[in-house]
């Protein structure tokens, strides 16, 4: 220390001076350099100018009044009960459009139940489940669904779309991983977005692709075991895909679930009440215990012919939604008259599984018939009650194809067969399916009616495509 001090004294003065300058310069660079940056504070006047200058985009884009979809809604006036037949512009058409597969929407005994409930409870429940919106009929319906599906518990939602869209974010949070099929319906897609989890898409019904992703994830987990311990992994699939009309390979999915320890969520909106010998859905169709599935969600708006949806599964899983399912906690409960309508529909399905056999026969008949229409491809399983008719040789222009199909739909409607195009929010779908006419099958259709549907549709196709 002393030596250093001595050395300092002995150093030449110019040397000391130079070093001092250097030190000052370094200080200046470190601490004062910013002070020389020009200040970019705006004056009040400039601010006001900025505010005056700003022009927002219009809230909604200008849409021509004669937009075809709008026109269709305006001009096709539907009256009366939409059952096996639907009255459009005063013309009675065979209804191949609404998802009323078992005719529950117009079933007299279901209606009678609804009216009975109306006379006891009125229409609305006037509150969310937590605040006196729970009625004995809701508890009964939950109980009935749980028993029907052989699950421990079921939870009832007031709206089909909100069911799966609320269920997914109740479990999967930021940082979790969800493996999802590319073909899932829009409600699931919104649930995935709302969860803010990491989404890994696998090709539609491609188990190899899924396994590849699962292996990838397993490798990643091995690298970072600490993170893997808190990262929940989910697998979300649809039982019967509404956009494709095909089934998910459930046995393989369950096998992968146990192999790679992911939780399996199954959306059965279309298959519930339809597939399996008793209408219990894909699990019954493949003879798989519902215990192997972590959560089954379905809408009551299709086969059941009511409104709302439900989730069912193990008690410890389902109960969680009663406090964290957004659509459950913060929404008014299902009107009691729609709840009892659903109870009655379930009872009917349970009592008369013959309906399901009829439906399946009709589905297969229509499938084989429609396969004969020239210039089209029919997508979906023969047993699926939803079928998509696509153009066999689609052009590169989607809009043009949509227009063609719309013309076909219009023509067949004029010839008394009501069909509809499958509509999508084209910009928002994760993977947009090809345009198609969506046929939904009713169990009450007779052979003659099926023939009429076939001839009308094939004529319409011939006329428009060859034109």
């Amino acid at each position, binding site marked *: 220390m002393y030596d250093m001090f001595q050395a300092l004294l002995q150093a030449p003065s110019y040397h000391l001076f130079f070093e001092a300058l250097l030190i000052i310069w370094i200080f200046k660079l470190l601490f004062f350099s910013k002070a020389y940056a020009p200040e970019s504070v705006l004056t009040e006047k400039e601010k006001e100018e900025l505010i005056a200058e700003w022009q927002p985009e219009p809230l909604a884009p200008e849409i021509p009044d004669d937009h075809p979809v709008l026109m269709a809604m305006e001009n096709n006036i539907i009256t009366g009960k939409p059952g096996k037949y639907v009255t459009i512009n005063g013309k009675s058409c065979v209804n191949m459009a609404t998802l009323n597969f078992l005719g529950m929407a117009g079933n007299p005994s279901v209606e009678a139940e609804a009216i009975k409930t109306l006379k006891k409870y009125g229409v609305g429940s006037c509150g969310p489940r937590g605040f*006196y919106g729970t009625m004995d009929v809701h508890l009964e319906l939950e109980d009935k669904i749980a028993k029907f599906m052989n699950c421990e518990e079921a939870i009832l939602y007031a709206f089909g779309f909100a069911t799966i869209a609320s269920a997914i974010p109740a479990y999967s949070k930021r940082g979790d991983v969800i493996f999802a099929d590319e073909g899932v319906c829009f409600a699931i897609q919104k649930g995935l977005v709302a969860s803010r989890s990491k989404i890994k898409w696998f090709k539609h019904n491609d188990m190899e692709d899924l396994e590849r992703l699962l292996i990838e994830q397993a490798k990643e987990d091995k690298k970072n075991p600490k993170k893997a311990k808190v990262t929940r992994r989910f697998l979300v699939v649809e039982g019967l895909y509404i956009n494709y009309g095909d089934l998910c390979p459930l046995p393989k999915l369950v096998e992968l679930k146990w192999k790679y320890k992911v939780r399996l969520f199954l959306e059965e909106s279309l298959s519930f009440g339809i597939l399996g010998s008793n209408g219990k859905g894909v699990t019954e169709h493949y003879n798989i215990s519902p215990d192997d599935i972590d959560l089954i969600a379905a809408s009551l708006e299709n086969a059941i012919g009511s409104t709302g949806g439900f989730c069912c599964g193990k008690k410890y899983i389902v109960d969680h939604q009663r406090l964290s399912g957004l659509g459950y906690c913060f929404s008014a409960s299902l009107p009691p008259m729609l709840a009892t309508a659903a109870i009655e529909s379930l009872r009917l399905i349970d009592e008369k599984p013959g309906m399901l056999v009829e439906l399946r026969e009709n589905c297969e008949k229509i499938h084989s018939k429609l396969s004969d229409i020239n210039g089209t491809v029919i997508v979906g399983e023969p047993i699926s009650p939803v079928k998509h008719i696509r153009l066999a040789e689609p052009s590169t222009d989607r809009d043009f194809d949509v227009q063609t199909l719309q013309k076909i739909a219009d023509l067949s409607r004029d010839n008394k067969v009501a069909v509809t195009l499958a509509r999508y929010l084209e910009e928002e779908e994760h993977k947009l399916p090809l345009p198609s006419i969506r046929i939904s099958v009713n169990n009450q259709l007779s052979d003659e009616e099926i023939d009429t549907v076939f001839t009308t549709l094939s004529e319409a196709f011939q006329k428009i495509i060859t034109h």
Partner: protein
Amino acid sequence: MNIDEFSQKPVYLASKSDVIQDTSRIRGRMTIREIYNTHVKEEFPASQTVQALESVTSKRMTDILSEAPFSGSVTEQTTRIPVLTHGNGLHQENDRLKTKLSVTNKQRINGHRRSCSETPYGRSMQKKSEMDIQHDKKWESRFYESFEDPPIWTSILTYISFLILILVGHMREFLKKLGIGRVKNISEPNIPGFVTLYQTWESFYHWYIFRRGKDTLYRAINSVPGAEMDVMDRVTDDHYWTFRYTGTSTRVINFGSYNYLGFSQNTGPCAEAVEKSVNELGNAICASRQELGYLQIHKELDDLVADYLGVEAAITVPMGFATNSMNLPALVEKGCLILSDELNHASLILGCRLSGAQIKTFKHNCMEDLEEKLKEAIIDKQPRTHRKWKKILIVVEGIYSMEGSIVKLPDVIRLKKKYKAYVYLDEAHSIGAIGPHGKGVVDYFGMDPKDIDIMMGTFTKSFGAVGGYIGGSKRLINHLRLRSHSAIYSSTMAPSIVQQVISSMNIILGRDNSRDGIKRINQLKWNTRYFRRRLQEMGFIVYGNKDSPVVPMVTFSPAKVVYFSRYCLEHGIGVTVAAFPAVPLEKSRIRFCLSASHTKEMLDKVLEMTDKLGDTLSLKLSRKEPAEYGDSEDQDEEK
């Protein structure tokens, strides 16, 4: 103009009006900038000196504003001479609050919030034309809202009670680990290899805190949720882990359902019309709007709603929650900004989140904060890219169901026009419930519905049905008919529900050739004012606007809320409770939802019980004079 001249201005002003007298009352809390804004700006064009002065004071301004609750009302006081009776009450309040402020000043948020929402006079920084002031006077003098803070010791006790709950919970958790104790939770089975589904804190709160008051929520009923209802009796054999229904039920007065206009009925014209519609149209549609699920009756409803609201067109959705969550994403997208009230409903928050737009929250019903955020947003542009915002959407609710407050709509409209933003107004609780014609907050303030870009509301509450609507310009609704998630991916409303809305709406509009609708509206208004006035006179801390039919009464301690609710149920009254996390930790509350179907006897019974309980639980903590309910008194006599 130099500084010297400027400082002399108040003297000049004093000779012009009585400003000195007013400022002395406010004890120097009036800042130079306010004086400048109030008077000088009109006299002198903005000069650089003043601008410099402003920039110095503006930072201090925000501090001062948060401290002084009523300093801003200077503008009004000087223009509103002679000082109104309201004004006098204000000054007394001001003094009383100031003493309180020194205690609670550390709770900055609370302090600020009071300053924003408690003053019946909106603070205005802009130069106002005489006409504006005239216009504002109309609504501001009627507008009374209160959010009183508890005495400090109540807050402390509340925190201590939560602390005890948490400590006991941890002790039980510890005992459970040792294998002692009877904790009967349905805990998650440990499946080897799987990551646990739930976080510890979530379950902890549910098991050890929420469970203790679980019986106050999810009570099942088996009757019409009208003025009275049958609550199903249930017992617990295991300290609220599970419940067992005994099969009997108790008749109670219903203060829990959102049945504002009393349309929850199983007889009468609505029920008859609904029965007919089920017979004619079935009980479900099973198809979406664009896929042949749009019936004549839906079209009729859409047109009726548009007519009811006074807008060009409307679209209806089968679920109120989904109306927000499924339509907001169609209105804003990435690159847009949403300014959302901090107390907005979960459905709005979800809708905003799904839209992908940037979300900023502003303080509850605080127009100054909203203006600040608007200005900031336009000036600072988008973060990172610094592009201009595509759109700015202000999202507010009509009546906030947890606070009972009413949105300051005239101010929102003024700001919206000034900054060219769009307004999304959620009238879930206000449609039907307030306004002389039952047409919601727009009607309440006498505004033009066309000034609001997106009018949203639900059919669940006032109309006794379920579902929601969006009303607006033809262009907007056409866009939603094409782009709304609900128009494509969900089935349309069941005919029975549609019919209920049509029937009840026609009654409110008086199209059934009876005065039933207007009677209901007036009854609800009378009930609201009578009930709120009586509660305030008893000395309870009642939150919200004097015209809001949701009446939150703050009890602070969670145990008191639970006791209150249980006691009421035992004595024939059903109320709802709200506690953490739905409301701030120390502000648990009882909510009375008033209805047109409540009779004065029912209200009196509840008031009597509340009075008694208030003494037992020492809930009469308010140190404010009750609001003036002038016209309610008149009607009282009439009755």
